[in-house]
């Protein structure tokens, strides 16, 4: 059995964990406190879990189940009214003492991180291609007729096709970036910090650290903005400040 770390909070609250809160593998969540001389103590939400949970190679769906369980515990921590620093998924220690020792060793930096996110939550914008654009992208590419002797050969045509695709992908990425900036402008007045995601599979995203009380205003401001043609927008959050806890 190992100690699994979910998140860190300050200041400690003795009865903060909801009764019956279960985490990974249905194990109960508990709290341990890293005391610090002359400074505020740090509270860690942990669980004692079976190490085999991580050694067994589960199918992808089980990975998702574990990740969602991790996030639910951190959501419960956020619901206490304090803003937790989420731990990266999968961090575990041989027992409580080494976990506490590592927290205490990094306590100054952790306290600064907690102070930065205090009273805040993370919201986000996910920008994806609209259905019409996806369908357009799926339109068949005409197959060129057999080249005449003076025309480029297959190898060159292949390379030219690759270059064309790369240019198209880059153009899409730039268009996504531009649109994301335009949408973000609607909430700039609420944003205290920003963390940009990496565009993959045509999806771009950005995370914003905002005051907890501003979550509704953030959504309302974005709801009033119409995404440009070819894009659809999703608003995520409020959630714990994953993107601002590194």
């Amino acid at each position: 059995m190992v100690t699994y770390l979910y998140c860190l909070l300050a200041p400690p609250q003795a009865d903060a964990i909801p009764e019956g809160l279960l985490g990974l593998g249905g194990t109960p969540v508990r709290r341990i406190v890293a005391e610090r001389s002359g400074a505020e103590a740090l509270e860690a939400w942990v669980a004692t879990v079976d190490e085999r949970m991580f050694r067994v190679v589960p199918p992808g769906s089980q990975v998702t189940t574990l990740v969602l369980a991790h996030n639910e515990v951190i959501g419960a921590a956020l619901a206490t009214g304090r803003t937790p620093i989420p731990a990266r998924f999968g961090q575990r220690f041989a027992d409580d003492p080494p976990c506490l020792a590592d927290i205490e060793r990094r306590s100054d930096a952790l306290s600064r991180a907690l102070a930065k996110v205090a009273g805040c939550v993370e919201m986000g914008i996910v920008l994806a291609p609209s259905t019409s654009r996806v369908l357009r992208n799926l339109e068949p590419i005409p197959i060129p007729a057999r080249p005449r002797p003076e025309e480029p050969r297959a190898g060159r045509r292949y390379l030219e096709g690759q270059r064309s695709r790369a240019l198209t992908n880059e153009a899409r990425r730039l268009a996504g970036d531009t649109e994301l900036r335009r949408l973000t402008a609607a909430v700039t007045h609420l944003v205290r910090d920003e963390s940009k995601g990496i565009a993959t599979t045509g999806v771009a995203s950005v995370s914003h650290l905002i005051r907890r009380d501003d979550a509704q205003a953030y959504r309302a401001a974005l709801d009033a903005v119409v995404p440009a043609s070819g894009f659809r927008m999703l608003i995520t959050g409020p959630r714990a400040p994953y993107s601002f806890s590194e």
Partner: protein
Amino acid sequence: MTADRRDPLNGEFSDEQLVLGDLLNHVLDKGVVISGQVTISIADIDLVMVDLRLLVSSVQTMLKRQSGVHGDVPLLPPGAPTG
């Protein structure tokens, strides 16, 4: 991190899939690293145990690193399962 779950009818991710994917990316790729060991998922390869000193990454970080330090760090420890 996960298999391509695009809707086969129209070829795009549903809103639910996008939100779930975004959340999975955040939980796997963000958050404070104290120490100890972490478990990650790489593409369709199931959970792989790595030591923090070797590599802590999810797919997005991995992709980001491919352009910069590709090959500098071992992706998997010797003897790790590969699928």
